[in-house]
């Protein structure tokens, strides 16, 4: 799986930092755009990456966002340290959210994040435990 690997972009994402939230996804989008990748694919990746970034900010104690470029695909990986997700099936349900009211006032926590990430991906894997959550998303070029 590594023979087609081209490049990795990595970002540290701080918990509760709503001012910086989106900077990593903006950088990812800018890099992919400048590489001439199809605008529709870049938009899908930007949305997925931004949802993942916002989730780290809202729900975790901090984490990393990676964007791996291969010849034939792009993989977004979100790793966080935190309480993890109790019930992944519920978390994948549109409209289900554990975000506090303070987060909703900022425009997020509508329970659309994970379903939306899945909707825009070609492959979606999520694992979560009491130490944190990992999401690996693939988009084929």
């Amino acid at each position: 799986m590594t023979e087609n690997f081209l490049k990795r972009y990595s970002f540290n994402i701080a918990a509760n930092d709503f001012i910086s939230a989106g900077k990593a996804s903006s950088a990812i989008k800018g890099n992919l755009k400048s590489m001439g990748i199809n605008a529709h694919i870049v938009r899908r990746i930007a949305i997925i990456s931004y949802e993942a970034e916002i989730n780290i900010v809202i729900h975790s104690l901090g984490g990393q966002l990676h964007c791996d470029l291969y010849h034939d695909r792009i993989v977004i990986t979100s790793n966080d340290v935190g309480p993890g997700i109790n019930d992944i099936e519920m978390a994948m349900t549109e409209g289900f959210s554990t975000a506090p009211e303070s987060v909703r006032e900022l425009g997020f926590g509508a329970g659309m994040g994970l379903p939306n990430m899945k909707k825009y991906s070609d492959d979606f894997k999520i694992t979560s435990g009491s130490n944190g959550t990992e999401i690996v998303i693939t988009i084929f070029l």
Partner: protein
Amino acid sequence: MRINEMASILNAEIITDFSDESTDINYGFASDLMSDVLAFATSDSLLITGLNNQQVIRTAEMMDITTVIFVRGKKPGKEIVDLAVENKLTILATDYTMFKTCGLLVINGMKGIEGND
């Protein structure tokens, strides 16, 4: 719909303007929840919102949305305007409510995004 026409209909202030001769926005999506914008809006739609923070601009950026109108008298602060300029985003602000804004845009020919892909 052209930006100037939009501003005139809504008695809105044009805060940044990156529109050009080809700018003609015919669809609108209104929400204070950026989660819903990310889930349902389309890149050719006008974003109508009463949320006033930087994540509005970030959301528009990710969606390739080019134009945002802030309703209910929300005036974006300097950091929001700076981020909009960085992303070449046109932003307007009106004192009208979201309901009145949407209503006026619809009776002047703007459509919802349903069936628009």
